[in-house]
């Protein structure tokens, strides 16, 4: 009910993916530039395979897309998914703001229910 219209499962995958600092860093970098997986793996103190796993998690959450170019796998951040995730909290705020508006309307009709008029 909080974020009715949002694909909840997809967002869970997004937030799981973003829970790791390396993966967040990969997203931020690949939003700006396309990186090969091997270029990314040189940035972090971990193996190529480990970075590839991180990229796979991000890919499943649609936070990045991967394409092949020769022997390279090139990674690009997906702006739309990032924006959608960032909006979740704003949506929660909106849900409650709307509720409070209606709350005020209902109260205005009957400000002191239960009391004799």
């Amino acid at each position: 009910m909080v974020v009715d219209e949002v694909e909840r499962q997809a967002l869970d995958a997004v937030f799981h993916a973003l829970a790791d600092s390396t993966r967040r860093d990969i997203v931020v970098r690949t939003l700006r530039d396309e990186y090969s997986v091997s270029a990314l793996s040189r940035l972090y103190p971990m193996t190529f395979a480990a970075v590839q796993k991180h990229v796979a998690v991000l890919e499943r959450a649609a936070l990045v897309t991967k394409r092949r170019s020769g022997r390279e796998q090139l990674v690009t951040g997906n702006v739309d998914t990032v924006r959608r995730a960032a909006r979740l909290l704003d949506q929660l705020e909106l849900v409650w703001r709307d509720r409070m508006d209606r709350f005020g309307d209902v109260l205005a009709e009957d400000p002191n229910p239960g009391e004799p008029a």
Partner: protein
Amino acid sequence: MTVTSVHKDPETRTMTLTAEFAATAAGVWQLWADPRRLERWWGPPTHPATVVEHDLRPGGKVGYFVTGPDGERRTGWWHVLAVSPPDGLEFEMGDPDIQSLLVRVRIEEEPARRSRMVIVTTFPSADAMDLLIGMGFEQGLSAAVGQIDAVLA
């Protein structure tokens, strides 16, 4: 102006919303305590709520469904943790699709038959922790997204 402030704090995983109403605390309380009144504000006009169970006691449950424009129903519930009429209540709120949120409501009566209501929503679960980090991430990222917007403009 009903809502006077909204504060989102990634550190404590909370959103704190403050609203003011021209009514006594008892009046404000009735909108939580009376299921028919609750129905009038809980769901948006496109998804009106029907409260089917309303046991506002510690350990009690409030159950409802909202009906969408296509007639589709979604259920939701509160697990009531604490109740203190007319000062406030605390409940865990969930539905089949979302991790539960902790909601704490405090109602403070002010002079001249006005009241302030403070609603604190906390993300309690491990999944919600991820959500929290997503929030921190959101802040760190807004600059990057801004740059992208500038490029696309």
